[in-house]
């Protein structure tokens, strides 16, 4: 066979491969949306699930997912910013720093179920928090720290050296340069990374089944006192998230419309991820433009 016909054959083969992939992926998204979107209604996203009857919703689960996300970011983002600043600005090439970098890389490669089991052992049992939002938020923070640290470090490293030199020339100390010049300039990158990590937190389930638990107690959405056991804000109550709910009702759900509820919940999950994706692009562009104009 001549080189030219091989070339044509190979190109055709690549088109076939891409065709297969597009069909599979489009089918996947199509399946979720076509079956899921008809299930979505105001009633579905606000009412609590039913155990034996049909017609239940996913209200508490949706709230739990967002609440857990907020708590996780509140724990993980400050630590990640600190660690990212140190690694980008202060760290020298020293064996301790190299060890720390390896450890962070190892943490990022751990399967989520292992992190979940550690959370179960440490937060749920040892710290005595039980299956609670707090345990779940800490487990998810551990799971996402390496990713966030990397994002912060990269965004800071991308700031040109001249900006630092300008700060030093004005008589700023290194720390002042970082907090007043570098961090604001690195903010668009950091925000984009944080929103992308949010998508990961939102859909995570394996790390949560043994930390945040697989049940939601009856919660009263008119009671906003964080210390009351029926309050949605109470961080010490068990909280099943949307992703965990999908897993649970497919394994042991006994409501007659379990499949329909999973369809709806899966569509809701993907719509939320889409939302995070687009917001991160949008905010990233917006902030980039604003910073650039300055």
């Amino acid at each position, binding site marked *: 066979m001549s080189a030219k016909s091989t070339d044509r054959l190979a190109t055709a083969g690549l088109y076939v*491969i891409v065709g297969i992939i*597009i069909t599979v992926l489009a089918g996947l998204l199509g399946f979720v949306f076509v079956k899921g979107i008809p299930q979505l209604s105001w009633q579905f996203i606000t009412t609590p699930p039913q155990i034996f009857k049909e017609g239940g919703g996913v209200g508490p689960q949706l709230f739990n997912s967002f609440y857990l996300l907020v708590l996780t970011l509140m724990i993980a983002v*400050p630590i990640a910013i600190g660690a990212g600043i140190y690694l980008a600005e202060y760290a020298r090439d020293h064996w301790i720093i190299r060890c720390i970098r390896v*450890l962070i890389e190892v943490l990022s490669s751990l399967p989520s179920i292992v*992190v979940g089991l550690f959370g179960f052992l440490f937060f749920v049992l040892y710290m005595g928090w039980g299956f609670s939002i707090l345990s779940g938020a800490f487990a998810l923070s551990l799971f996402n720290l390496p990713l966030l640290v990397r994002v912060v470090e990269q965004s800071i490293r991308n700031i040109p050296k001249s900006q630092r030199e300008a700060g030093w020339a004005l008589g700023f100390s290194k720390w002042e340069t970082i907090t007043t010049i570098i961090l604001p300039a690195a903010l668009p990158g950091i925000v984009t990374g944080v929103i992308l990590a949010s998508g990961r937190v939102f859909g995570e389930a394996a790390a949560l089944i043994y930390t945040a638990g697989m049940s939601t107690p009856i919660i009263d959405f008119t009671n906003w006192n964080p210390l009351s056991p029926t309050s949605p804000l109470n961080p010490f109550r068990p909280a099943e998230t949307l992703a965990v709910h999908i*897993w649970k009702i497919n394994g042991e759900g006994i409501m007659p419309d379990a499949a329909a509820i999973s369809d709806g919940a899966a569509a809701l999950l993907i719509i939320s991820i889409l939302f995070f994706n687009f917001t991160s692009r949008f905010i990233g562009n917006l902030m980039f433009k604003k910073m650039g104009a300055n």
Partner: protein
Amino acid sequence: MAKTIKEIEHPLYRKSSKMRTERFGKSLTFIAVVLTAAITAAILFLVFSKGLSTFIMNDGSVKDFFTGTTWNPAEVNSLGKPIIGALPFIVGSLAITGISALIAGPLAIGAAIFMSEIAPNAGKRIMQPVIELLVGIPSVVYGFIGLSVVVPFLRDLFPGSGFGIAAGTIVLSVMILPTVTSLALDAIQSVPRSLREASLALGSTRWQMICKVVLKTAKPGLLMAIIFGMARAFGEALAVQMVIGNASVIPHSLFEPASTITSILTMGMGYTVMGQVENNALWSLALILLLMSLFFTIIVRMIGKGKST
């Protein structure tokens, strides 16, 4: 004498407040770094100590663990040792990971070549955003689709219930496909343009250029992409657990119910009591999982080092 003391007390000799904030800031960020590293060390320590206690405290046999085929840690065998044959789970995990990589790897590399060499415009504008979106889809959704589409499909086509390694492999291949594609694309795009031009200038066709120049140069990066996908497949818990059937035997075909390390961990941890043999045995499985993920990380690092030198 009195004069020197006075000199030291001079304002110029005092530490400035800037030094103090500088030190404060530096130590604050250092604490954050150390905390992150310490958490990893704590996870490694806890999983190792819990995982090894099956063999040290409960007198389990390492040989049984890796070669035995019966998993019943609550009972003891004729030698008075707990029955902890984890081979079915290890085989299940390895089979699923290996076959998924065999399916997803070539597809992903093909897609990456297409996006970078054949249709860069459509690739960048349409396929790349879609692939990035798919990377973010939660694994539970993949498992759920597997349960409601792949399992019934296999049930109609082959004898058996549809649950099994085949279903798990299909779900995982689709799940790691976007990740591997995205990493493979990075590797292929980092091949310098001049190499491509040199090859084309020598009269090679596009396919010869792709085969002999681009793929060869990008090989370490492509390997890293596939291993990264394998690490993800090996550690995936819920998506696999939903479609594999959860039978703790070594299956005779790809269409019979089986188990993986992650699926047995997901199923079992809630039904055992801390400190007992059944529970410790599960932690030993978690240790295997951790060691495998370390192994994957080390390989990726070694390939990365080989690439840079």
